[in-house]
């Protein structure tokens, strides 16, 4: 069987690796972005000088030859579904038996005046990084539009090179359309502390042309303020990269429509990762989830389905993680902006724990961590087994994943709870791997 995979991001490559593990099929991966698979989430570290581009490639170049995964560096112009054929821009067409779309995303553009000027770009693809690099020399200020995960990464990147940054954020606090208010305020404080010019309640009005087709300033819609800059980063989210498939027989809404087995409406054609839109998402999950982890899960599941093992895509309990400059962030389960929860914050104002629970049943439904690491499997087990709030609090030490010798927070958390609710809970477990392993085995 000949399997063609369009896209060499984490979804496509995970699919290719698993198909190889499951059988002796012929595998081609087509991408015009880069020669080899790299970690998209790590592009920022190349710009910041933490790593070289080679370092963010998880496999050595001979891995592909050894595993007989054929890498084709080209762009797919058109898919002829009837003939099962891919028309490429520069090389010969590729005929397939089964096809997997792993096309990823593109940065959102909302028709802002000037969005196509030079010195304007998102941060998604390798080419975006190259664009940033090309404009960085002698850059006196950069403006980043958008207050999400990529916006803050881009701000951190410029900041690391001592390039002043202005961030335009639509919301009244950083990312408060996702984060609860306290966490959102914490990150806003952190951004300002780093000397980044954070402008809240600010939309992009227009990007001004310097006369040579290059951006030289932006105008803030609300205030009319003009901010001079040599680069404008557009980081207002991403959407599925499916434009070239519109007007084909493939069913595309925002993304490529797939069922629980990641099959599209056309036989032998699958879609995974950022570009896939699940028809009926599992409870607590979204139809399109453009994150690393789901891309990897889908890659594995689609490989089974392509190879004939019918497997339902069930990503399980939601989790995600990110880093806001120096503050690590983890979330497990459902943590809405407004919720019934207990919230503990360290006096330094950069560490917090939030446990979301149901008022009536006391069942814990989500955990949100800032600057504190929790253990994935323990949180997952609590959420899956519908653990009660006080049970979680008394055993909170099991979840600790901070490095050894770190300051403890468990006592402070539990005494805050005891004081506010007039309870007398005590910590029942110790911070020890053996207790964790026993708990997980139960």
């Amino acid at each position, binding site marked *: 069987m000949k399997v063609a995979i369009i896209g060499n991001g984490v979804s496509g490559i995970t699919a290719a690796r698993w198909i190889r593990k499951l059988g002796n099929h012929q595998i081609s991966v087509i991408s015009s972005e880069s020669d080899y698979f790299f*970690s998209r*989430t790590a592009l920022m570290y190349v710009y910041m*000088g933490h790593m070289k*581009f080679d370092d963010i490639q998880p496999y050595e170049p001979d891995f592909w030859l050894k595993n007989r995964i054929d890498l084709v560096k080209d762009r797919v112009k058109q898919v002829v579904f009837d003939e099962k054929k891919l028309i490429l821009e520069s090389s010969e067409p590729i005929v397939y038996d089964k096809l997997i779309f792993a096309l990823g995303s593109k940065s959102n553009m909302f028709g802002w005046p000037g969005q196509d000027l030079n010195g304007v770009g998102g941060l998604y693809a390798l080419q975006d990084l190259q664009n940033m690099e090309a404009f960085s020399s002698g850059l006196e200020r950069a403006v980043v539009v958008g207050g999400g995960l990529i916006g803050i990464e881009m701000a951190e990147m410029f900041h*690391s090179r001592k390039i002043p940054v202005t961030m335009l954020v639509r919301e009244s606090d950083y990312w408060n359309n996702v984060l609860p208010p306290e966490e959102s305020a914490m990150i806003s404080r952190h951004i300002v502390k780093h000397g980044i010019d954070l402008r809240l309640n600010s939309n992009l009005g227009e990007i001004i042309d310097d006369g040579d087709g290059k951006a030289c300033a932006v105008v803030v819609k609300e205030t009319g303020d003009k901010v001079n800059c040599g680069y404008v980063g557009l980081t207002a989210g991403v959407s599925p990269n499916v434009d070239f498939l519109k007007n084909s027989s493939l069913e595309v809404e925002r993304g490529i429509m797939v069922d629980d087995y990641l099959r599209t409406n056309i036989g032998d054609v699958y879609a995974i990762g950022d570009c896939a839109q699940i028809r009926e998402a599992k409870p607590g999950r979204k139809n399109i989830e453009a994150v690393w982890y789901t891309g990897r899960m889908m890659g594995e599941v689609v490989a089974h389905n392509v190879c004939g093992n019918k497997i339902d895509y069930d990503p399980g309990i939601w989790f995600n993680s990110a880093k806001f400059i120096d503050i690590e962030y983890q979330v497990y389960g459902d943590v809405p902006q407004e919720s019934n929860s207990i919230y503990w914050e360290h006096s330094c104002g950069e560490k917090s724990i939030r446990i979301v629970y149901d008022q009536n049943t006391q069942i814990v439904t989500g955990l949100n961590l800032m600057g504190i690491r929790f253990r994935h499997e323990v949180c997952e087990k609590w959420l899956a087994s519908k653990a009660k709030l006080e049970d979680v609090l008394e055993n909170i030490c099991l979840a600790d994943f*901070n*490095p*050894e*010798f770190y300051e403890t927070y468990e006592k402070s958390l539990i005494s805050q709870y005891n004081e506010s609710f007039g309870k007398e809970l005590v910590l029942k477990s110790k911070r020890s791997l053996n207790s964790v392993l026993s708990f997980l085995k139960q």
Partner: protein
Amino acid sequence: MSDPVYNSMSVANPHPLHLDLQQKLASALAAIGLLIILMAAINIKMVATVQMLWLSLSLISIGTIWFAYRAYLTKSPGIKNDGIMFSSLTNKGLWAWMAGIFITGFYVLLYWFPSYLGLAQDDQGNTGLVAFFDPLSMLLKSKPASQWFVYGVLYTLAILIFGLRFIWKYRYNKYQILRTLSVMFFQLGFAFLIPEFLQKLNYPYNDMKNMWPLNYYFFDEWSIKGFLEGGNLGWFMLLFGILMIFIISPVLTYLYGKRWYCSWVCGCGGLAETAGDAFRHLSDKSIKAWQIERWLVHLVLLFAFLMTMGVIYSFFHNNPQGYWFDKGSIVMLISIIVIGLIGTNWLVKPFKNKIDQKALYIFTGVMTLGLLLMIVSYFTGNKNALFIDFYTLRSSYGFIIGAIFSGIVGVGFYPLMGNRVWCRFGCPMAAILGIQQKLFSRFRITTNGGQCISCGNCSTYCEMGIDVRSYAQKGQNIVRSSCVGCGICAAVCPRGVLRLENGSEDLFSKTDEIRNIQVK
């Protein structure tokens, strides 16, 4: 490569380093301090040489510390690797080559041409660099300095000042702070001050934390005699050294992994972690390098073991009377140890399964051959256990492993091959502890569920060249014999995915489970 990203990222320094005025002044101070030492080394007459020694050491320390203060304490705590790949010194540029050649040259003089450093010839006094350090040596032990004293002072000073820099750089991470204080303490106390004072009091010179086989001269005739003639303290040191090898070290390695030694106690590790920290990312992460490492480091261990066998045998051959043991009983003891080691590796299932088959056969073959030769020597009354002149064996080990490998390649090549080249490819101590860590230790690095984003910071900053990411992205725990447990992978992970920890519940299955698999 025409790709702009490749261009800008790989050439030595496309982006200027951001040094502020204070950092430039601090660099100038350190440079003046170094210049004074160099002037002394080439015998330029200076007024007030005693004060000049203190002045130069102070200038170097203050300059370096001031520089580090500006580099780290003016910023908020957090990962501080900005621009590492752009700097000439840390990215194998011109500065790195110059530093590498300078340090290598120093080691060549130190080992083979100490007279060029000014070590006294015949009855004349010291000159040059060694003489420059005489006042400090007189103060500590009432004897003039030797080239080793100079080396010891500079080594200790480097661990202390770069240790402080390290603590500031990783000040958000208490594990890093504590283990750095620990290596600073062991270097200053155990490796430097205590041995110097011991010499002053006419006791044998001994660094008690420096255990066999890293301390390959521990069983040399002069060393054993030194202990035996050193009264109760000497006996204590001898027994403590043996206890370290057979009891203390295996127990601690079982409990905490080899990190208790390699990144909390050891002097080589101490220098690598502190002065070498800026070069940790230069270690080779390729599978090829890993293969070379496994063969080389274990062959060095085998070499060290056979050499020590010969040395001990010769000691008892040359000193037939006067000690509790005679040659016969030591041959018995060595035979029991060797047979025990071979037997354990073959008969204990969980061990045997984890050892490479080829390595197991070579180990068994070489050890059996060595043992047979020793027994034949014993019965024929030969003075050399292995029929090879043991002085030749001992001195070639000292030359190849002790000098070239641990000194010149190990430290001189920091800026070109990374800071743990010796620990990774050459150290027999690391090899022994590594085997223990792999076969029976509670230690592992846990991967937090499926949260790895394959970014590569862990692998890049692993000084031992372990491709940490290849395990983490599979959700697998990391148990590698070479891991020194420095904890930097966990410290630089932007998603907090890694944790160093110990647990006995899953001793022999700690790497089995691959939790990152969606389809069970």
